[in-house]
């Protein structure tokens, strides 16, 4: 599964005695940023998220997870890793396993070599998560930087501080079954530390390309993604029966995808605004600064949408599906203009 020469090139690696944990908004961008920073390529979470074209919107009514349609404010799992890897020219070693024992043995071997690795896991089986957040979501990313006795030392980017996880639990979380099942997925940058330092520069070209990718999705001429996806969802909401319990569940589910699942607020819009700001400075593309400020304002509108929705879910305001739908289509209008302008500015 992995070429034999991998270990040959990395004899100069020292065991990871410490790992610089940084608190992040989103698990995948946080894991990739922290992992690459550890291997000698300093990278912020917003830059990882941006280069990975992490921002999106999708409403896939035909995919049901726990009876709810798939609604995402982000690109599909693993897109950020792939995008960062391609932009920076840093290949990642990616491994999956047939059996849990093989997966655990390989993880232990890598840790013993001093490797720090990223993993895909299921939140439900991670005991350090708060009880109310443990749902069967199989695409949670974290970084393992060592082990001590029967515990793994884990840098889970959505936690403020490093955590520990017993061996059996982590194995279970890596081999959870079902949608997006991780199959023990682990990853780490393939090049040795020195090689990574050669790829320090994020070029304006990389940034432009990653932004164009987001704009293309957001303005895609298909009804289920981007701003058209928002409008479709809005039309669906407008028709809902205010008295039906399913209405409240769907609205609550949308807000949960926007705010609860590590998004950094406003359905990743604030995080992407942080990327545009950093890109404006480090990529010497001053035009992006203005877009960063505009996206922050759009993020505030998403927060207002979440607040209005949650008040109805909680029963503080009467349920008014057309009003929620109107807020959502207004967001679609704002983002359509925003991404059209952004694309034009980069042309």
């Amino acid at each position: 599964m992995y070429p034999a020469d991998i270990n040959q090139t990395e004899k100069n690696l020292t065991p990871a005695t410490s790992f610089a944990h940084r608190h992040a908004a989103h698990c995948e961008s946080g894991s990739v940023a922290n992992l690459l920073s550890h291997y000698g390529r300093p990278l912020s979470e917003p830059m990882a998220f941006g280069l990975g074209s992490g921002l999106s919107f999708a409403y896939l009514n035909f995919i049901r997870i726990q009876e709810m349609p798939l609604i995402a404010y982000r690109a599909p799992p693993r897109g950020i890793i792939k995008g960062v890897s391609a932009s920076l020219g840093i290949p990642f070693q990616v491994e999956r396993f047939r059996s849990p024992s093989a997966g655990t043995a390989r993880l232990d071997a890598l840790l013993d070599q001093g490797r720090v690795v990223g993993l895909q896991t299921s939140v439900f089986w991670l005991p350090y998560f708060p009880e109310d957040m443990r749902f069967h979501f199989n695409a949670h990313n974290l970084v393992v930087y060592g082990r001590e006795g029967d515990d793994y030392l884990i840098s889970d980017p959505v936690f403020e501080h490093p955590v520990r996880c017993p061996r059996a639990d982590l194995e279970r979380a890596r081999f959870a079954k079902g949608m997006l099942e991780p199959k023990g997925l682990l990853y780490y940058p393939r090049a040795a530390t020195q090689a990574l330092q050669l790829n320090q520069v994020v070029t304006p070209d990389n940034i432009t390309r990653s932004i164009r990718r987001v704009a293309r999705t957001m303005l895609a001429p298909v009804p289920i993604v981007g701003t058209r996806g928002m409008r479709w969802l809005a039309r669906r909401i407008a028709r809902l029966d205010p008295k039906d319990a399913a209405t409240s569940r769907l609205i609550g589910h949308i807000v949960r995808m926007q705010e609860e699942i590590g998004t950094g607020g406003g359905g990743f819009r604030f995080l992407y605004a942080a990327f545009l700001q950093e890109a404006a400075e480090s990529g010497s593309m001053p035009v992006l600064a203005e877009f960063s400020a505009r996206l922050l304002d759009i993020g505030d509108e998403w927060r207002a949408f979440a607040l209005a929705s949650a008040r109805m879910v909680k029963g503080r305001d009467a349920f008014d599906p057309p009003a929620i739908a109107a807020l959502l289509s207004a967001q679609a209008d704002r983002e359509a203009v925003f991404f059209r302008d952004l694309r034009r500015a980069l042309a």
Partner: protein
Amino acid sequence: MDIHDVPQEGNATLAGLRKAVYARGADNRIVTVASAGWEVEEIVTQQAADIFSDYAAAARKRVEAGESSPLEYWMYARRMDLATFAQSSGIWRWRIRRHFQPARFVRLNPTLLDRYAYALGISRQTLCQLPRDELK
């Protein structure tokens, strides 16, 4: 959002965990701020957790009335629906649904019970009965 607008209301579902939120600070720089929680998130997370506890409570009543087996109760108590449970146990939905019949459930062989118990992350003994108290 400005950093002084980042909600610090506390959020019971986070159990003390703080989340990183991006907000505008001094000189318009966007930085991460640890947020103790926003009531909006609490409402929707609680709602999602309650959906399963409500299903579990309803299943419990059916089990007590002899209309269903503890398997159905445990499925919801472990936050799964039938589709997720079928995927994680590798047992077809229609078959699981049959095993919700109490008469069929009591006749299940230990191997199959173990498969169910493993998928749910509980022991076989636990699987075969309802817990005395309602789970949180």
